[in-house]
């Protein structure tokens, strides 16, 4: 048994969980709800074990480091954070429909890491610039934030879907209202978006701060406006604006749902686009 096989199993579990959650949503098959949660939980456990195993394997290869050092490892960790954050949301809000809008992100991240030709799953030694404990603090905090934003985006989409169908119904057209009435109340969805965004914002802030401290330890500049830093700040501006719009100006509903979606697009660009489309200090990610 090696970590690679376990990650393969995880990918499959997340696919299965996504299918189940979507089935709950579309066919109102509430009964398979427990199965969906169980598959997700088992997937997450195996995922955790696989991560630990990969960590051990890197030591056996003679250049041990936490599995957080390149695009492959970060995508895998991203999926872990999404699954974990989603399970937490499911438990907290006692709602499984959200899974249909969240677990596909976890699966997509795993699948992309495993199957994209430009991403190598090989365990590589750490180049000098990455040999720092701040690497772990920085990556972990950033990705907890990213995962919360991914889930917020999924729930934002859920909000828009439900909202437009309700509008359609009000306008007298026939919508798929039957399907969508299984979704939680718009107010509840709105509340979960806000809470996920707020949670993500705290972790993104801590992620940016740990990154700044690391940069200062490594290069003597805590902020150098390199594209990755700048994009993370852009993302941070957007979510800061969303919080103020919501908390102080009372924005809610569609507008906040849209901000959650645009914000996550920014997250994706910060995380992925910058590595492949722009150049800078963080180009390690393209390895």
């Amino acid at each position, binding site marked *: 048994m090696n970590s690679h096989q376990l990650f393969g199993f995880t990918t499959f579990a997340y696919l299965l969980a996504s299918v189940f959650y979507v089935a709950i949503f579309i066919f109102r098959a509430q009964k398979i709800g427990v199965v969906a949660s169980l598959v997700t939980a088992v997937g997450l456990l195996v995922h955790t074990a696989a991560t630990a195993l990969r960590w051990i394997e890197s030591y056996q290869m003679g*250049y041990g480091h936490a599995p957080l050092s390149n695009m492959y490892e970060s995508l895998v960790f991203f999926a872990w954070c999404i699954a974990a954050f989603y399970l937490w949301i499911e438990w907290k809000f006692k709602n499984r429909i959200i899974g249909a809008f969240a677990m596909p992100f976890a699966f997509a991240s795993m699948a992309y890491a495993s199957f994209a030709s430009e991403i190598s799953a090989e365990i*590589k*030694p750490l*180049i*000098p*610039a990455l*040999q*720092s404990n701040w690497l772990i603090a920085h990556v972990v905090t950033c990705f907890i934030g990213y995962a919360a934003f991914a889930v917020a985006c999924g729930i934002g989409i859920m909000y828009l879907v439900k909202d437009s169908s309700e509008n359609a119904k009000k306008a007298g057209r026939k919508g798929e209202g039957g399907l969508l009435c299984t979704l939680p109340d718009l107010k509840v969805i709105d509340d979960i978006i806000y809470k996920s965004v*707020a*949670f993500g*914002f*705290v972790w993104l*802030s*801590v992620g940016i*701060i740990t990154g*700044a*401290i690391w940069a*200062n*330890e*490594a*290069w*003597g*500049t*805590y*902020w150098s*406006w390199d*594209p990755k830093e*700048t*994009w993370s*700040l*852009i993302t941070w*501006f*957007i979510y*800061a*604006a969303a919080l*103020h*719009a919501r908390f*102080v*100006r009372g924005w809610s509903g569609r507008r906040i749902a849209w901000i959650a979606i645009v914000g996550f697009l920014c997250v994706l660009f910060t995380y992925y686009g*910058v590595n492949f489309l*722009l150049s800078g200090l963080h180009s390690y990610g393209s390895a």
Partner: protein
Amino acid sequence: MKNEKNIVWRFFASVKLALFTLFALAPLSIIGTIIPQKADPGRYVELYGPNLANIFLTLDFDDMYASWWFTSLLVLFSINITICTIERFPHIWRVVSQDNLKTPVDRIKKMSIRRSFQTSASMQEAEAAVQQVLPGSGWALEKVEKDGGTLFFAQKGAWTRLAVIVVHVSILVIFAGALIGNFFGYKASVMIPEGGETDKVYQANSEHTPIPLGFNLKCEWFSLTYYDTGAPKEYRSDLVVEQNGKTLKEQIIVVNDPMKYGGLTFYQSSYQEMNGQMTAVLKNSGSDAQQRFGIVPRREVKWPTEEVSFGVTNVTGPDFMRKYRYKIWFKDAKAAPVEFWVNEGEVAKVQRPHTTYELMVKPRFATGLQVVKDPGVWTVYIGCALQMLGLMVIFFMAHRRVWVFVEKGDKGTAIFLSGNSNKNKIGFEKDVARLVEGFEEDDTLGIGSGKE
């Protein structure tokens, strides 16, 4: 006049302005991630043609994060935060410090989260029960007689209201730290060949102005190692700080582990091979005496105290592992000279009648150091810490308040329980449920289940 001031004040205090600034900063910041920063003017002409390049350069797009307009936005943002904080502070302080026992009883009875109980117990017994149940769940009570009854009040986390101020002020603290660094610090760099030293560094601007260090910085050794995959593993410099011939500090630095001395920080940032030259360590394993040498090919190197001389007569390589091989000529007074080959970085043992010498030879490098003076860093770090603490408090803690009013009722005594929380309403509902449970379990009250 007063009104006019109010308009300006209100403008700078408004959250609308904050939203405008944030939504402006976000897309404008993108420019500098697409257009290369701090390149030569010619480069922009090459990339975008003369007309566009001209516009870009006029708008300072070549160094946009330091441009007048970007800086102005940040200043506007700081003013916004400052005025907004000043404006809101009195309101926040009132909530933190107000006397909640003054809250009118009819308001308490109308709060959205409320419960009421009727009990046949006497007022005294009911009050005793309140004073039992609430402190039992960690609510410290205040009490006042009013409106024909007794009002109790307890709160948790009133101070958490101040966290918003902490978060906003932390942004100003971070900006202040950045300004301190800008005005009182500098960034510089220097190349020091192995065995060489410098007493100045060169500012990292276009003029490369020399800055005296006030001491000598010596690089004794530089080494570069690779993983077996060929990827670089470590860049390392052995640095020594000297003044008037006295060694003040010795430290090995690698990437991610700089040396701090005299308010400056020295970072390992680059290296250069000194073409054709080598450095060597020679050690007398009998006496443990050891010395480092710089070597030029085919030139004799002397170690006078040991009466040894040696040199490199031939070099081959680098091979596939990027390693050189050296042919060494070695001589001392005790026996005939010898010649032998040694691989870069490996130790060759030279047997002599009286002792064994150990020789290690490698290419000579110059280490590239980044030298930073930034007296603002700690201010920035304090700002960051305040921000993290503030955000945690804002999002993970709440200000919860409960009032309990005890008065004469139909059955004897009536107890009203109500409260509110500025965050996490669900959690607060649970707190209230716990208190209700407490009342229900109290024997003197004898109430089975609470009812509205």
